[in-house]
């Protein structure tokens, strides 16, 4: 990629027949994807990023509040897969591997990053790529994946869905410092004020508490959070 790279341009190409066609022009011109726009993806390929934008927007579509991809969820997933989570932090990876029962949980021989990479390739090899489907087609594929009703070879479809679902949810609602929940989109939607900490005088009162959201890297005097870049690395806390 050269300096002409634009995440915004990539993600806006998620299908003329699909979701972009339903988005009003005004929304397109907002500063979607602007935060990381000039940066190449850390982990994702351009095609994977488009797939994830289309996929996560089925889970969290646009309405009065931004869609998943509009709120930076693809940026979030990119960072998560490139980082410790995607590479298997907190995951016991000793074999032998066996499918097991649903009650036994994650049993993939892959950590989340290669799992999702291989799953996207397998899904798009099945026929029409997700980004080229219309909205109904995308919804149908997502629903079938969640039911395990898609053959992904060695990969367990429900596990793949579980990882994508969790990452989408996290990207929309985690502190903006991780690249998603852009401009506190998710927190504004539900009314979560973030890292405030003093409610002693309010806890027993039946009244609204309409405080503007404030994250761990909030920029004072604004309604915004610093990103992973403007905030610098997360402080290295001493842990066990």
């Amino acid at each position, binding site marked *: 990629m050269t300096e002409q790279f634009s995440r915004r341009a990539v993600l806006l190409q998620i299908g003329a027949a699909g979701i972009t066609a339903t988005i009003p022009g005004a929304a397109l011109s907002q500063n979607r994807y602007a935060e990381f726009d000039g940066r190449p993806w850390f982990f994702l390929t351009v095609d994977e990023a488009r797939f994830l934008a289309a996929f996560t927007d089925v889970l969290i579509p646009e309405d009065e509040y931004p869609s998943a991809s509009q709120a930076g969820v693809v940026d979030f997933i990119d960072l998560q897969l490139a980082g410790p989570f995607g590479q298997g932090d907190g995951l016991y990876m000793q074999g032998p591997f066996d499918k097991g029962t649903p009650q036994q949980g994650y049993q993939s021989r892959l950590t989340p990053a290669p799992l999702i990479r291989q799953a996207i390739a397998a899904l798009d090899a099945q026929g029409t790529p997700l980004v080229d489907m219309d909205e109904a087609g995308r919804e149908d594929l997502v629903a079938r994946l969640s039911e395990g009703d898609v053959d992904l070879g060695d990969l367990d479809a429900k596990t793949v869905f579980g990882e994508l679902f969790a990452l989408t949810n996290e990207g929309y609602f*985690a502190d903006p410092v991780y690249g998603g929940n852009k401009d506190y989109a998710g927190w504004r939607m539900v009314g979560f004020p973030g890292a*405030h900490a003093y409610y002693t005088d309010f806890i027993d009162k039946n009244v609204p508490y309409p405080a503007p959201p404030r994250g761990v890297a909030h920029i004072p005097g604004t309604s915004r959070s610093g990103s992973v870049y403007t905030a610098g690395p997360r402080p290295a806390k001493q842990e*066990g």
Partner: protein
Amino acid sequence: MARTLPKTDVVIVGGGWTGLAAAIELCNEGQRCVVLERGGYRHDATSFAGPEEHDELRYARRKGHMIDTPTKTLSFRNSSDQTALPMRRLGSFLPGKGLGGAGIHWNGQSWRPLPSDLQMRSHYTERYGEQVLDGLNVQDWGVTYDELEPHLDFWEKVAGIGGATGNLNGEIQKGGNPFEGPRSNPYPNPPMKPSPPLQLFRDAAADMGYHPFQMPSANMTAEYENPYGAKLHGCTYCGFCERFGCGYYAKADPIICIYDRVKDHENFTLRLNTHVLRVEKSGDGKTATGVTYLDKNGQEVFQPADVVCMNAYALWNVHLMLVSGLGQPYDPATGQGVVGRNYAYQTMAGVSVFFEDEVWSNPFMGAGALGMSMDDFNGDNFDHTGLGFVGGGYISANQTNGRPINYQPVPEGTPKWGREWKKAVRENYLHHVGIGVHGSSMAVPGNYLDLDPTYTDAYGQPLLRMTFNFPENDRKMAKHVLGKTEEIARNMAHVKSISTSNNAEAGNDYSIVPYQTTHNTGGAVMGTDPATSVANRYGQMWDHHNVFVFGACLFPQNLGYNPTGPLMGLAYWTLDHLKREYLKDPRPLMDA
């Protein structure tokens, strides 16, 4: 070849609540104590400060304060005809790692057992006949409520528990839990403030003739100084208790309540980043000689000691016994053996309550032990005749947090994603409360812990293997108490709709995946008969009299309560006998 260190009086495996309690009590008794802690140093002031601590992704989702499974996990299966597979990622329960252990990231819900809970087999047998316990390994604890009471009382002072006293020296007090055993003192602190949903639950339950009261809380309700001299501050209801440390000195934890008060004691030594591999047995067959551990550089070290205290998390205490060959391992085929026997958990169910818009629950305001509870269907507080089960649970409307990744209440029938889901989340987030059933868990012969034949941990030792499913008894119990909870929810004012969930619903196998509760109990239980217990009624191992066992692994079956209060009462009971009777004349404190 392990390097051998000079002998110490006491070696303590684990630097959490019970390990640090043992350290301070025994150091003050003139015993030189070495505490071996698997994890690293951390402190409330420097490790848990806001706003950085208020990071749901890092701590609640990526489990920043918990054990890391690549180093230490277990394998799991529902029944012994399945192949156990490793718990590759944390889920159903969250053991801690680092100074303070799981006591750092607990909610702070502190209970006492009921008097009848501690004599469960004899109590039920007397009231209903022994047949109600058919098929269950239900046992008496070997210690009575009256014996434990002074120690429960002391624990509540150490942790500054705030609550409404229900039974003071036999006199029932208004507003408290009338079912609790007699207490010698009121709670050291007043109860927490109830949020609007808790007030609605309280009013509905009271109208129906039940006995609601504010849940006993280790989230401070006032400025407080504990008996060791630790100073704590009032809780601000920030909604970041469970899975988080408290940087405000507002949640009792082992670091601020105990460690800070013992760390400079001349008898106290803490060795961090040390992993205990085994307890070493003596040639006399009656004692242990100390423990072998890996130091922070990965070198094997033998620490000789006169007394070994096992203060690891319940599951890891059992694991350490199994890999050390302490006690007779349980064999489910014959029912013989004791180590790993009577593993139990907690049976969780709940009602989700959706309010009309005029009720503002504001779930992001909350505290780990902010709850309005009732004990009318716990233990044997209700007549079990003809019900077909024993045990029960407390019912509690809780407002612990509104952290938005995990807290997304939507009414029944809402799709799991998409536009309708998105709309339902934002319409209900500020107008919802959960009412939990915190149910007991009975020990049965088919639920147990042993060593896995295939998988190993980072140190090459076999993983602990858990075989567990919900016993039929507990499924019936959960259904019954959940039904009562649903009736109360329907009687609450301003309720739009309700929905229920029950982990132990008929046909649902226990799953290691969704978080339920970090209340793993049993596996090294206490009692009065060496054929059915690992430790005697003082927590002293039958087979090795200088090994003392602490924590929820001692519970013969699990209560309808959170385990921290009971297990800390047991810890101070054990330490009292260790100090007063054992040290001056080391011997078995009970005849086998």
